[in-house]
């Protein structure tokens, strides 16, 4: 298994920036996810790593070997395409065996390894089927087996679960994760689904408009978003802009409109002084109804309630702002009624305003 290093990768399609000075350092056996909205350049980045797309500038290393100018067929990566790209004129066996045949491996060895790979993805017995005779989930497994059978240095997955139905997707998610841990294969996973990214990854890179905005573990990304885009892309949040008025015990007092809000900076790296413009990020699940001392308290009225089964999403109008909060499903206050909600001081994330956007 290899480390993958991207050094200053740039790629443009006409006026569209697909990658802007992208630097990544993916560790051995790591499950690394590139997460971003559609069109942010994440698939392009994956294709650049596979060698299917030429970059404008930058370098790529597998371990310490420069593979920048290596054609795709010499890179020895295993890619699973979004639409699986199973060859319709070949059986499951032939699809999986293709990479081995190209490598001129002996027949017995091919038979053995294809069998193993199909066992690994739980498809034994379907060797002679054609792709169109398989269900979506099965096709996805064939694509995975085809990529794994060549024992690639890196496994590249391009939204492999996006074509499956919701239930199957969650099933495949855990299978994929346990498979990856077992094989200890360096994996780069591209997705726009934040749940997938959070559950699967060792580390996540958040990407937008060709730029990497933040790299970190799922917990870091969620709890310490380094900018507003990351904060709002991962999970939901309410944003309040204000100015720092006071510092006390490591907490900052921020004046937003007429309210005074206490919170903590996301990172020590930022220098925030009294008078700095900042943005406060409030996660909806951190709100509660029972107010205790030292909490930030908001008094307003309920604008809208969405019942979502396990919980309620409540929009509370406080002065000019609308705050999103999540409460239990037994929440029973009606729309337009007044309400008092609170959020603990250490749950309010503060970002310098310049960094926020």
């Amino acid at each position, binding site marked *: 298994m290899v480390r993958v290093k991207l050094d200053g990768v740039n790629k443009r399609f006409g006026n569209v920036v697909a990658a802007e000075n992208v630097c990544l350092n993916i560790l051995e056996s790591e499950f690394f996810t590139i997460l971003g909205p559609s069109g942010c350049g994440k698939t392009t980045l994956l294709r650049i790593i596979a060698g299917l797309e030429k970059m404008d500038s930058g370098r790529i290393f597998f371990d310490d070997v420069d593979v920048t100018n290596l054609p*795709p*067929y010499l890179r020895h990566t295993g890619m699973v395409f979004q*639409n699986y790209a199973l060859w319709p*004129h070949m059986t499951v066996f032939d699809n999986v065996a*293709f990479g081995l045949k*190209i490598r001129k491996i002996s027949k017995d060895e091919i038979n053995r390894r294809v069998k193993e790979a199909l066992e690994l993805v739980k498809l034994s017995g379907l060797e002679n089927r054609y792709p169109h005779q398989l269900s979506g989930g099965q096709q996805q497994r064939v694509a995975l087996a085809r*990529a794994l059978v060549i024992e690639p240095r890196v496994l590249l997955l391009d939204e492999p679960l996006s074509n499956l139905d919701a239930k199957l997707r969650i099933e495949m998610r855990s299978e994929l994760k346990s498979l990856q841990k077992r094989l200890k294969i360096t994996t780069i996973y591209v997705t726009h689904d934040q749940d997938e990214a959070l559950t699967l990854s060792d580390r996540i890179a958040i990407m937008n408009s060709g730029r990497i905005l933040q790299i970190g573990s799922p917990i870091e990304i969620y709890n310490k978003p380094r900018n507003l885009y990351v904060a709002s892309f991962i999970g939901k949040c309410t944003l309040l802009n204000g100015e720092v008025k006071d510092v006390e015990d490591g907490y900052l007092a921020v004046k937003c409109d007429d309210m005074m809000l206490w919170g903590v900076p996301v990172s020590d790296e930022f220098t925030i002084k009294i008078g700095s413009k900042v943005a406060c990020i409030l996660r909806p699940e951190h709100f509660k109804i029972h107010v205790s001392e030292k909490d930030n308290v908001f008094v307003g009225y309920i604008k809208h309630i969405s019942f979502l089964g396990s919980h309620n999403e409540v929009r509370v109008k406080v002065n000019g702002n609308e705050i999103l909060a999540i409460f239990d499903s037994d929440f029973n206050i009606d729309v337009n009624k007044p309400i008092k909600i609170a959020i603990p001081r250490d749950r309010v994330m503060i970002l310098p305003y310049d960094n926020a956007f």
Partner: protein
Amino acid sequence: MKLTYILPLFIIFCVIWMWKIWRRHIDLFIIGLYLIPLVFFTFLFILPLSSLFLAAFFYGGKISMYWFTSIFTDTFFINFQPRTGYMFNVYGDTMYIWGLDYGVILNTIIVALMTTLFSSILGLVTAFILARYDFPGKNLFRILLYVPMLATPFVNAYVLGKLFHPTSGLINFIFYDLLHLFPYRIDLNGLVGISLAQILSYFPIVYLNVQASLINIDPSLEEQAENLGAKGFSLFRRITFPLALPGLTAGMIITFIFSMEDLSAPIGFIGYSGNPLAKKVMSYYIFQSFSEAMRGVITPETAALSLILLSFSIFGFIMIKRYVSLKTYASISRGGRWNPRVKRIYGLRLFVVYVFLISIAIFASLPQIGTILLAITDWIISGILPKNITLEYFYSLLHPSVSRSISNSLVYSFIAVLIAVFIGSSSSYSVARFKGIIPSILDILSTIPVAIPGIVLAVGYFMFFTTFFRWTFLDPLLDPAPLLILAYSFRRLPFAARSIFAGLQQVHVALEEAAMNLGASRFKSFFKIVLPLILMHLFSGAILTFVYCMSESSTSVTLGALRWDRGPITFYINQVVYGSILVGSASVGASLCVLLMSIQILAITISNYILKQRVAIYGF
């Protein structure tokens, strides 16, 4: 000559250009993909036509417009006050409909416009009826409407001439002598005759293109309009017709181009009656001067006239390209993704539809029916109606000179198909897979042969290859066969290229990328993944190319005439119809046409029922 300097410069330019691409891709497969078709088009299209330019724009050793001004001021070519010709003139009991002589250039344009107009009306109505109405026997009419497209080169017009002969023609016999429906005997010949022959064989081109457009209209578009209150003719005018317009335009322009370059109808009428007006079109004039100059030099005037003809058809081609892109025809060949809207009709409507379809099916198939009659009966000498069935003309196919032309055609077409498929796949592959200047040039070059009049190409080839390839195997004066093969492969390339392109569009790029990712080079992934997936399209394209190589006439009758033992089938048909050969009669030509038609029917059947490919005969 100047070209001796330009040629090496051009080649050096190409090499430098190639080198730039080489450095970017460093992939021999792609280089070959670009280079081979580019060399092919350079030598079979760009350079021969450039030599036409050089000849036409030189006078007295200087660049000059002399030949063009002399053509445009000559009343032989353009004449706004026609002095000869008959249009509805009655002498005795006969009405002469030959057309008026406005000069060779204007005649050609008028004939082409008339052909296009009437073909479009007939094609549009037929397409609409067959695409939107449901009635018993619909599929039979669909098949019958393929009949007018069967190749009967030269003989088609010969048959029409015979049918419309004032005293011994079958049409006049039925409608004047028998039914007294015509007030006069009709003598339809000359320019009007040419146009009629063309309408009969070209209206199915419009019909098929419009039908393809109509089938590809998402029914919900029309349903939405109905939902908003549109119905009947207003629905047709506002929604259906505009959506079918790309197909109609493409069909119209192809018809226009084909009409301008058509040699078959003029030669057929001349062969039957020597009508002087049938000689007054550009294609025939160029053909005639080519024949006269056979062993000598082609005059600059012929070159200039060829360029004028070329410019008309290139103009048409550009119009199509602007209006209907390459992408549209790819979707046409897929077709039928949804259930098209069809309405069952009854009563009076059904009756009107039947009368229209039956009369058009019979009338449009007259050349084919007549050809078969000429081949299997003594009709050619028996007068109004055939009297005896005879196999004499089929036996004559075994005559050494006839069978040699058949084997020539088979060999030429077979090799031409191999070349066309090879060039067609490389250029289609680069068009389908890569972006950039070369793929877009290849895209244009692989469809442009449709717009190049064969007669112009023949003149260009003759000038270029006898000048720069004298005494080589490509010199047509030594042996026209190699050049004929290349001419066939160039002229029929669009059939191969289009079919392969349609196949490639259905092969997702990711299928190849997956192979490359697993270690297959581009070369290997093409042969292991792409080729098996487009094989059916490739075969179907090859079959279609073969059929149209067999019936190719313009270069066959010109270049093929340079050595008679090398002449293909169409050359032989031309010789017997035109009467410049003593062996055999037009009936021998007709039996050769029957052979061509059988090959064509066989090919379409194989393509449709065995390869399961919907064959679009002509179209964009």
